[in-house]
């Protein structure tokens, strides 16, 4: 029996035995979810189900099993002069493709190179009935059937076990440079929003501790004029992008309670004590927000040993009703622990 068949068998067995399953990637995700308190929950690890299945660089697609470490994927595409556009966080240097898909997290280039939702082209999935299903594929354009591959992204394992996935990759830029300038959050906010309306080769912005860092990517021919254009040319710390992506930046170490704010595009946000990235659409603040503006989504993390627990705001009631029905459509007997529904 190959590792996929073992996973299928486990889901089928648990369904019959009315035992519930919590899906784990590398267990690197900085959250402990509710199943810790439940009994009779089995942990299903995709770790052994690892390996790149197909990678043809000229197709701009890589297909891999869900347990494949993100580092292995990133190295494989880098060797061909390409990159993973959604650049998922690798907490503690770990993390798997399946975990990245289930948690739906994207890295510092998200507003420019797209989210992990944007990159996923196809998945193979075990649903709650223990069926092995394929949706989407490895081509860029595919509208046959509902877009289940993208629906699975961010579902935190509540719809099924992702066995493998095809994701879009992009050519890596010929050159990349990080520049920085010291300014107030308010000044940074104004400048970043003004740049968003212009065709500039920006692939990252991060404001923290009074410094605004900007990543420029492209041919050298594009970068030099862009520095003049944005009037920033002091050389910055190129390591900041990875540090922020993996929550390893000192900012995250300073606090035991941190809130991630997802801000509407174009909204003003100028808290000098926050870490503000994604062209001003994602911010991290210490503690819990006192009040929230309309359309702002907040997720609070609390340090818990060497990981974090998280509390998310409830989803709008009507939407929650349909999310629950969708979950039921994939997992009628409730085999998978519903980390996605809270």
């Amino acid at each position: 029996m190959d590792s996929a068949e073992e996973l299928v068998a486990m889901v089928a067995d648990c369904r019959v035995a009315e035992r519930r399953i919590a899906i784990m990637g590398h267990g690197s995700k900085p959250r402990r979810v509710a199943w810790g308190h439940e009994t009779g929950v089995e942990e299903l690890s995709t770790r052994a189900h690892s390996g790149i299945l197909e990678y043809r660089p000229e197709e701009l697609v890589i297909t891999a099993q869900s347990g494949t470490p993100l580092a292995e994927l990133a190295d494989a595409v880098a060797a061909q002069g390409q990159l993973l556009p959604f650049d998922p966080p690798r907490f503690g240097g770990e993390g798997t493709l399946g975990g990245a898909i289930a948690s739906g997290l994207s890295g510092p280039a998200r507003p420019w190179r797209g989210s992990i939702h944007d990159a996923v082209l196809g998945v193979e999935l075990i649903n709650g009935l223990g069926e092995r299903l394929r949706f989407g594929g490895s081509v860029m354009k595919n509208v046959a059937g509902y877009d289940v591959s993208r629906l699975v992204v961010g579902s935190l394992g509540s719809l099924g076990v992702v066995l493998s996935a095809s994701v879009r990759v992009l050519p890596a830029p010929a050159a990349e440079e990080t520049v920085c300038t010291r300014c107030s959050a308010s000044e940074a906010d104004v400048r970043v929003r003004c740049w968003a309306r212009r065709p500039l080769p920006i692939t990252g912005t991060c404001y923290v501790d009074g410094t605004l860092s900007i990543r420029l990517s492209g041919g050298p021919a594009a970068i030099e004029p862009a520095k003049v254009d944005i009037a920033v040319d002091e050389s910055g710390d190129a390591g900041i992008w990875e540090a922020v992506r993996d929550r390893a930046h000192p900012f995250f170490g300073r606090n035991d309670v941190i809130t991630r704010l997802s801000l509407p595009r174009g909204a003003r946000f100028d808290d000098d004590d926050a870490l503000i990235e994604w062209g001003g659409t994602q911010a991290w603040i210490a503690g819990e927000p006192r009040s929230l503006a309309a359309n702002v989504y907040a997720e609070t993390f609390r340090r818990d040993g060497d990981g974090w627990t998280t509390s998310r705001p409830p989803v709008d009631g009507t939407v929650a009703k349909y999310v629950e029905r969708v979950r039921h459509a994939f997992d009628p007997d409730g085999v998978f622990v519903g980390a996605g529904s809270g």
Partner: protein
Amino acid sequence: MSDTGVLDRLRAALPAQGLITDRQAVRPFETDGLTAIRERPWAVALPETVDQVRAVLRICREGEVPVVTRGAGTGLSGGARPLKDGVLLTLTKMRGIKEIDVDACTATVEPGITNLAISQAVAEHGLFYAPDPSSQIACSIGGNVAENSGGVHCLKYGLTVHNVLGLRVETYEGDELVLGGKGVDVLGVDLLYAIIGSEGMLGVVTEVTVKLLPLPVCKHVLLGAFDTVETAGDAVGAIIAEGIVPAGLEMMDNPAIRAAEDFANAGYPRDAAAILLCELDGTEAQVATDALRVREVLESRGAEVTSAADAATQEQLWKGRKSAFPAMGRIAPDYYCMDGTIPRGELGRVLGDIGRLADEYGLRVANVFHAGDGNLHPLILFDANQPGELERAEALGGRILSRCVQAGGTVTGEHGVGVEKLDAMCEQFDAAELAQFHRLKAAFDPAGRMNPGKAIPTLARCSELGGMHVHAGKLPHPELERF
């Protein structure tokens, strides 16, 4: 409730002239862009507000009447094909722009607005809405969402799904779903991705928030003429392998080149076996370097290259491509447009096979398509007045789609399944996958009255076809009628 009761209530809920039931007056609505399939709707409802949409859904729900949503009716797979006992909910009167937020680079619009009207409305701010289906002067943004439409520029800018941030959806049950927004990243199952590309099966989209991009400062268009279709196909992969992502990368084969040239005088080389049109955009310096590299790739594969840096010449080069579809009307009474997608690396091989299949069926095929995405649009030329030709064209179409699936691709890249590709779906998906799709549909529409019978074939239909999911072979009974 009696049928007239439903009609009376609909009439009362809609503005004057907002309900059409006259048998002649409903005729313009009997088909979408797939004109081979026609059905006169029982009634056409033309609401002007979301409240009226809700009222139509409520009245239909209470009267147990099925609803088919229609945008501009340019769909090519019969997705908006009406039902003779159903209401055709047509949204062309809801075409307003609710908000243009220049700071956020977003526009929030009503579903019936045309794709092009959005870009036109925001051009004064130096912005545009990227997905540009060739039908963009006519097709509606609601239809684009339902089909997850692409266009000439999706290689670089993505499909509708990559450019829509938020939706408002009314379900048949009477709920309103507010999904996404101005780029807010929420966690958990995101129903936005269930709705985009769902072909009007899950609900009615009544509001769309789209992402706007800054207009590129500089464009450059290159045309490469090739001696063989295969080398043109290989050049596509080679450009990508160079690390260049063109804004558009389109290919035409000789029959398409000739037809377009006769029609539009774009200056295409009539004897070339294939041409590639490559558009680059970005900053001036970047475009200049990329243009040099693309020229090298094309020339190293024996292509003769013309290039256009000024807007007038660029437009001239695009003219032929853009008029390719109408041009077909001149060389054949009818054409049938296929829409399979394959991995780029398979282009040369699959195009060769399509030529051989066409010979086998005694029909001509012209190819004009989104090469950069591997999205084929073989146009099967035929004459419906010749007995048996339509059936032959359909059978050939089925074989071409099988070939796409076999090459690791899909039966539809951007036109959707509708009613047209139901049989082909039996080949791409197995019974458990189709059952999963049906359960997902039921999560949104338990009564099964939103656009019933479209997009996903019943298991019975597939087993009647004599087997399902034939991965590496041909359709079990190609001689069977496909509708």
